Structure formats: C-alpha cells, structure tokens
C-alpha cells in the first residue's frame, strides 16, 4: 500500500501505471480481459530503461490501478512488475493507416503490416509486411477466410507485428462498416 500511496501523490496528473509482462502473448490476453471488463487501458512500449526488445506493456489510469491489479489477480493473470511512468517517456502504438483501393480489393496498412481483402465476399486474400515470426503463421491461418468468420489476428498473434495486423483488421472492418 505504501508503494501505491507514493505513486498516487507524486505528480498524479502526469503519471500512468504500467504493467510489465513476461511476453507479448500475455499482454494481448490481459488487454482482452481488461477491455472486456470495461477498463480503459492501452498497450504501449515499456519505458526504455526496462525494454528488452520487441515488447508491449499495458498503460492504465493510475487511479484505477488497485482495482485492475486485483482483477488480474482474481483472473490468475500474472505480470512481472507494476511501475509508474511519466507520459512523455512512453511510446505509443502507431495510429496512422494507409488505405489502398484496388477496386475489387481493399488493402489497409498499419505500421509495417498490410491486410488485403476481396470487397465482394470479404475474404482475406493476402497478408504482407512485417518481420516477426508470427507473420507467416498468421498468413497461413487467415488467408482464405472471411472477415466475418476468421479469428481476430490478436487471438493468434504473439508479437508486435501480429498486433499491428490486428489494427489493420479493425480499420478494415471500420471502413466496411462491419465493426
């Protein structure tokens, strides 16, 4: 409790709570559960001092941290650490999308990942870009499936490239008024 009091009263307006996990898969799972429960959380890069490489963390409103940590404990989701962090130190996921209309096909790019669908039948026809190991895996699982029935990329993804594909997936559904 002493730790939480310290972070509540120190620059309360500028500090966020950051949850650090062992790997990206756990972040994606925690994000899914927390969002489903209505918590306003975001995925971000961990602060540079503790970044190991290709990792994600969860940013949460510090005022809600006690409830969120308890919620995760009840759901048996383990995290490595909880820290407070100045907002300026955090890198945010990309939020700029490139959209290319090929007529019959529509392609959306988020960061380094591109998702292309057939607009007539909503079939995922191609996935390109990226460099993390789940990109070929996601392509092998999703190409040929309909946007309406395919699993969301984040259900299969384990890396940041997979997460970027999820953003392209959400954008393409938004553009087609499917979300």
């Amino acid at each position, binding site marked *: 409790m002493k730790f939480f009091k310290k972070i509540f009263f120190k620059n309360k307006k500028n500090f966020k709570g950051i949850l650090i996990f062992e*790997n*990206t*898969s756990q972040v994606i799972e925690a994000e899914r559960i927390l969002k489903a429960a209505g918590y306003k959380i975001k995925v971000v*890069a961990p602060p*540079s001092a503790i*970044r*190991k*490489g*290709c*990792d994600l963390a969860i940013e949460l409103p510090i005022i809600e941290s006690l409830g969120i940590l308890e919620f995760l404990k009840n759901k048996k989701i383990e995290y490595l650490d909880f820290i407070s962090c100045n907002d300026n130190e955090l*890198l*945010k*996921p*990309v*939020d*700029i999308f490139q959209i*290319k209309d*090929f007529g*019959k*096909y529509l*392609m959306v*790019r988020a*960061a*380094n990942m*591109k998702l*292309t669908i*057939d607009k007539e039948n909503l079939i995922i*026809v*191609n*996935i*390109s*870009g*990226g*460099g*993390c*190991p*789940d*990109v*070929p*895996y996601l*392509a*092998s699982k999703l*190409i040929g499936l309909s946007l309406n029935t395919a699993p969301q990329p984040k259900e299969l*993804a*384990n*890396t*940041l*490239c*997979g*997460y*970027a594909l999820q953003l392209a997936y959400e954008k393409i559904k938004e553009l087609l008024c499917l979300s």
Partner: protein
Amino acid sequence: MFIIVGIVPIEDLPLIYGEAKLLEKSLEIQNYSIPIERGTSALIAAAIKVLEVFKKENPFTFLIGDIGKGRGSKNLYKFLSENIEIYKPKVITFHYILPDVDGCLKLILALEKLSPKPVLIADAGFMYAVKMAGYSDFFDLFTPDLGELAFLADEKAPHPFYTRGFLLENENNIEELIKRAYKYKNASKYLLIKGKRDYIVCEGNILNIIDNPIVEELEAIGGTGDTLTGIISALVYTGFNLEEACEIGCQVNRLAGALSIPSPATQIQEIIPYIPKALNTILF
C-alpha cells in the same frame, strides 16, 4: 558458402540445417518438407531459382519452427552464436526471427570474429533486432520497405509498431527518412528500400531508383519483399557487387511479378516460377 537463416511457421519443427532443395511446392531440407508460402521459405525458393540460372550450388539454410512465441528464435540465435564460424560463410542473409537484442548481440559478437568478414544482409525481424542492438552499420545491406525505413529513421522506436507519427506522415519524403536513418547510425552501408519505386542507397546517397515495370498489385502480395531479398542475396553470392545485385534484383522481381499477371489475391508461389525467365530477360 551462401547461408540463409530464418524461421518457418511450424511450431514443433526442430532446428534443421543443410542444403535446401526446391521441389514443386516445397523445400526439402534434411528430409523435412517445408511448404513455400511466404517468409523465409519464399526467400530461399527465390534464391534457388537465381542460382539455377548460374548453375551454382543451392544455399545452406538454418531453419527452425516459431509461430511468434520466440522459443525457436532463441534456439536459433544460440546455435548460430556458437557454431557460425564452422561454416565459413561468404554471404549470410538473416530473415524472419523474433527481434531479441540479447540474442542478436551474441550472434553479432560471433560474426565479428569471422575472417574474412562475409557479406551480411538483413531483412525482416533480424533487421529490427540489429537496429535495436545498435549494430546497423556493421551490416552491408538492409532491405526495408517504406514503413520499415520510417522505423529505421526513428531513433526512438524499438519496433515499426512504435514508429512515431510525424515520420509516417512524411513517408513520401524519403530523402529525409534516409538522411535521418544514417544520421542516427540505424542504417546498413547499403539500403534497398522496397516499394512502388525501389531506392538503392549507399551511405546516405541515392544511387539508383528502379520503377519499371510498375505492378501496383505486388504491394498487396505477401512474400514479394522476401523474394526480392532472396534474389539479391543470390546475385551477391554469384559475384555481383551490392549495387549491381540490387539493381538487377529489383528489375527481376518486378518483371517476374508482371509475368505472372497478378491480382492482389495472387500468392507468392505463383510468382516464383517466373524468376528464371525474368532474370534471363534482364541479363542476357
């Protein structure tokens, strides 16, 4: 020896290494059959198609299964760090792998001991790892697309997922991105920037731009960047210098794509068979 390193999306595939053979729709390595879909298997298949034309031996490949959980990548980094010197590589192309700074640094330490130094080419996840490790200028060639160039240009981004918006918004200002990537030492000696127009860059200077034929559909097709890196790597192994290899490779990859008369739904396996015809057209 020409070495290609990467992962394939088969979770339980152990580390396999040996000369790759190209069958109709798969690669055969150590009696394992690896489907040619996209990623490193497409890169290897494209390289073999080039080497066939020059009647050179097929590449020696190191592959392991990884679907993004990182266990396979970790083992691959470790094995190569401990064993790469045995293989006396002339050209090494590193491709899909989980970006991991520690694993990458150990491997780079092993590469630094090689004499003579091989030509080092990096694409995909390994390129991300090298940038994060701060060793970009130790490499001879990176092959980023425009989004990945913006990541190289962003000295703070640990992954393209975090590239800051002001760089992505200015993506068309490619010269500024190139300048910035070299300024912060996040570029290899040569860069091949893949896109609607392919830019060949050496130490910050644009040497050439390849934009013919333009086949818009190729941007959507997964694996066209992989085949380009494979073609260029094989050309370097056959004796072309990096600038020549990039120039010819871009032309061949574009022409092979055009010959397949693609749509955005075309799969990379449909393009790879056209590589020898495209190469013969461009060179002879």
